[in-house]
């Protein structure tokens, strides 16, 4: 065995017993062994000493201080009961309540404390208080979603009579109790459901997230958490700080008296920039159609209306949605849970043209006065790109190209500008990136470019950008895909002469204790350096659309000057054939767009409307915009939905 080692100043064997170490001398294996043994003994003593400290601590706690802790634990057991803070209220800009709380009794089961199995307990309970099959289904779903729980509600919103009946029999039901709880309610129901969102019971994923955020202690005693929309994104402000009560409880765990109370700090209220009346009018204007509308105050970025049709009743989610309702919502062909304004992407169609025109002016690709005779088509690479008017629009300059929505003008412009210039310019308006609105889940859409295509496709044959693809990008078709929110955001930026604000739904955060309001300051995120004369060309043309162009019919007799642009997004490629609405099935029909702002000389509102499968923008989307603008600017309330099925049939040039 080789125990020979050299040692130096870092290792010192014990003096006296071993010769002092010297270099190049092999040491006695036994002394090595001895040094190691000594260290083993020291380690053992170290272990004994620290275990001794622990044992001393146990003696202190369990023998010397036992009486004190015995008293604390037995006679005077103090329980810390968390007190849930009341959740902040959500109000619209005029103070109309959109989400509030009310107190009600619930019947709750703690499965681990039940004396017999769950089914038998519910069976017995049913003899006293009716438990419907729906209650059971919902309870089962809640149990599946949460592994770690204290108690779960089997029945919510008990009547006074039911509370009294259970109280008289509660001794028969250990593990089941009546609790007073705060409930969330959304008085507007479906209206604005996609922006408000909803709260739901805290599930395992939420628990992990709370733990990660270090918020678990603050959520003791809280059952619900924001799941979607504003309820989710402003969870921190809405929730508040949990208080607690020190209560004395007897050996059975029942509270005897309260010793001390630390009040919870209620959550902050949110005051939205949304006008709920305007929201209501906008939602109604859609009739039975699906689609989205976003209206923004261009001078602040405050969102005035945020519609995704159809909506859903957020109240269904609060106590855990029952499986039947969930199935209905999930499987409906209209997809009511899909937030189209935030997450639906559509080619912008002709609403892209004013932005293209501005790009042409800014990049000196076209002068505003340049005119060409429109033949009704554009030849490129042996392929004919058609205009929708056979024979063309005659002599077309930039003004007319927007007013009559001339495709050939933009086919040719796109070809001149090239894809790189187009995507660089459109990127300025946040096309293809998030607008940064204050709710989660926003998608970026697609701003097409050769780089994008390279990333999007794996097959090298598909990665190449073809010049022909640029042509249809020019009229807002092809790979172009943007959300209605992005369209409204870009329109607002255009209306505000290039000064861009981040869109936001919440305007003020109101402290509920002292009533102070903190404004979410509108700060311009960027100012796009456009020439005013170029902007004026576009503004004039968009006013022309509404006065004498494709939007004229919808805006006949308007008492303010509006600027707008119609658009139609192809759902289905017709391979050069002539599109006919009656011959196309409803779900393959084109989407109708309209973007607008008003008053044109001093815009107070900018919006984008999308009607899914609505056909032409002029017929389906522009009338909705008209009703919204009429109400917002004049206070005029409409008598009937803006569009019906018959409107969608009539054909107008777009």
């Amino acid at each position, binding site marked *: 065995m080789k125990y020979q*080692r050299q040692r130096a100043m870092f290792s010192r064997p014990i003096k006296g017993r071993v010769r002092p170490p010297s270099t190049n001398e092999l040491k006695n294996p036994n002394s090595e062994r001895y040094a190691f043994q000594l260290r083993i003994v020291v*380690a*053992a003593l170290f272990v004994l000493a620290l275990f001794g400290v622990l044992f001393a601590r146990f003696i202190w706690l369990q023998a010397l201080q036992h009486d004190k802790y015995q008293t604390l634990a037995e006679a005077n057991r103090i329980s810390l009961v968390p007190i849930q803070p009341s959740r902040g209220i959500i109000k619209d800009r005029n103070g109309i309540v959109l989400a509030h709380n009310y107190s009600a009794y619930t019947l709750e089961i703690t499965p*681990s404390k039940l004396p017999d199995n769950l089914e038998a307990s519910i069976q017995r309970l049913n003899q006293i208080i009716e438990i419907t099959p729906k209650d059971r289904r919902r309870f089962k779903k809640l149990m599946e979603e949460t592994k770690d729980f204290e108690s779960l509600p089997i029945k919510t919103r008990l009547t006074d009579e039911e509370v009294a009946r259970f109280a008289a029999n509660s001794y028969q039901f250990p593990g089941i109790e009546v609790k007073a709880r705060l409930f969330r309610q959304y008085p507007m129901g479906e209206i604005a459901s996609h922006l408000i969102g909803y709260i739901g019971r805290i599930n395992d994923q939420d628990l992990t997230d709370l733990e990660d955020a270090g918020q678990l202690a603050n959520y003791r005693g809280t059952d619900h958490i924001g799941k979607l929309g504003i309820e989710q994104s402003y969870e921190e402000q809405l929730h508040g700080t949990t208080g607690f009560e020190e209560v004395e409880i007897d050996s059975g765990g029942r509270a005897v008296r309260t010793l001390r109370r630390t009040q919870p700090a209620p959550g902050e209220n949110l005051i939205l920039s949304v006008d709920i009346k305007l929201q209501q009018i906008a939602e109604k204007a859609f009739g039975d159609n699906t689609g989205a509308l976003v209206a923004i105050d261009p001078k602040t970025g405050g969102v005035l209306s945020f519609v995704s049709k159809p909506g859903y009743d957020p109240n269904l989610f609060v106590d855990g949605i029952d499986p039947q309702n969930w199935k209905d919502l999930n499987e409906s062909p209209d997809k009511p849970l899909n937030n189209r304004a935030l997450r639906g992407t559509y080619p912008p169609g002709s609403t892209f043209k004013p932005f293209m025109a501005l790009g042409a002016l800014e990049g000196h690709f076209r002068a505003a006065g340049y005119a060409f005779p429109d033949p009704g088509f554009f030849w490129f690479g042996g392929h004919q790109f058609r205009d929708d008017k056979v024979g063309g629009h005659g002599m077309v300059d930039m003004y007319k190209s927007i007013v009559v929505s001339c495709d050939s003008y933009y086919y040719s412009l796109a070809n001149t500008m090239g894809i790189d210039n187009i995507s660089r310019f459109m990127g300025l308006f946040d096309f293809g990136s998030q607008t940064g609105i204050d709710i989660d889940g926003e998608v970026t859409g697609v701003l097409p470019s050769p780089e994008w295509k390279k990333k999007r496709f794996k097959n090298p044959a598909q990665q190449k950008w073809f010049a022909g693809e640029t042509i249809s990008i020019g009229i807002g078709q092809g790979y172009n895909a943007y959300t209605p929110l992005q369209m409204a955001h870009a329109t607002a930026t255009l209306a505000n002469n290039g000064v861009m604000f981040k869109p936001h739904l919440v305007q003020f955060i109101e402290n509920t204790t002292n009533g102070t309001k903190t404004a979410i300051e509108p700060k311009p995120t960027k100012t796009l350096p456009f020439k005013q004369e170029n902007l004026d060309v576009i503004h004039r043309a968009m006013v022309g659309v509404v006065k004498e162009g494709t939007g004229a019919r919808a805006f006949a007799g308007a008492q303010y000057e509006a600027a707008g642009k119609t658009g139609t997004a192809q759902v289905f490629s017709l391979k050069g054939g002539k599109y006919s609405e009656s011959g196309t099935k409803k779900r393959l029909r084109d989407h109708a767009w309209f973007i607008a702002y008003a008053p044109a000389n001093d815009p107070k509102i900018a919006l984008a409307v999308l009607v899914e499968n609505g056909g032409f923008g002029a017929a389906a989307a522009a009338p909705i915009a008209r009703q919204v603008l009429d109400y917002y600017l004049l206070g005029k309330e409409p008598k009937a939905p803006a569009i019906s099925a018959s409107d969608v049939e009539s054909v107008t040039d777009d």
Partner: protein
Amino acid sequence: MIKQLWNRIKQPIDPWLFLFTLLVFGLSVVLLYSASNRDIDKVMDKTTFMGVAVAAMWLIANVSQQNLMRLALPAYVLGVLLLVLVNVPGLGVTSHGATRWLNVGITRIQPSELMRIAMPLMLAWYFHHFEAHLNWKHFLAAAALLVLPVGLILKQPDLGTGLLIASSGFYILFFAGLSWRLIGLMILAGGGMAYTVMHWDLCIHLLHEYQCRRVATMLDPMQDPLGAGYHIIQGTIAIGSGGLLGKGWLNGTQTHLDFIPERTTDFIFAVFGEEFGLLGNAILLTLYLLVIIRGLTIANSASTLFGRLLAGAIALNFFTYAFVNMGMVSGILPVVGVPLPLVSYGGTSMVSILTGFGILMSINRDKKLMKA
């Protein structure tokens, strides 16, 4: 035939170490049944973990020391590499304000877990490798090998794990013959550090705010009565109210009225102290002591320097976990996420402890083979 098989199975097992382990495990099963409110599923889970862990122990016990040594360098390099990768954006997972995990697609792993074994393995191998001509430069290099991963872990930040891994490496240095004077200096420095972190104004310059808050909470639990302070208050009450003989199995009021948080995992010792009292604590301490003494005995009689160092470090490491856990539950150490070895519910900890025991058995087995 069957006898042969039986001999093959028991051949690498150290009977004493295994016996003490089984005794602690038996105690933990009884305790878990009470702590989990008679949840038989958890007891079954725990038994399954034990089965897996014993299998791991047996497998490692069969590995020869030569092969263990071969593992040292790759395990250490891999561990450091993973710790570095944690800092690569997109790979590291941040949670609680700390970046400790690595996203490997299907799941996330914590590279510092690997370092718990890789660190002592590496250092033991290192000293063994240069055994013939050890001098102070080797201690310096070993210290560097220790500081590199510990620094990476502290940076995450994960003070608790960093200190535990640093201590496992330090134990190797200690057994390898680190000079007493230096050890004395380190104890002084450690004392100074402890003094610093106990004073908020000084601490805040040195550590993260949440770490200082933990120490402050330990010194005055009422500062955070719903969070970490609640754990300490209720744990102390549970242990104290247990008295000399405890309230009896299944009779702990603190436990069964839901006062003890995490009562099957990190705070299971509070349940034990409440239901089995000072007598129970004495028995558990004795069993732990027996395990540690057995480990140190194996270290003492090991045939190679590698075996001596590694066995000594594993024994002291086991001690450290037990001490830190019981210390935090009884309120003399700050709350860090350390399970009570062999007792807390949870598979990872069981497997890593019994892997360590497997190494002890492997070291012991080689010695027996040489005698024979």
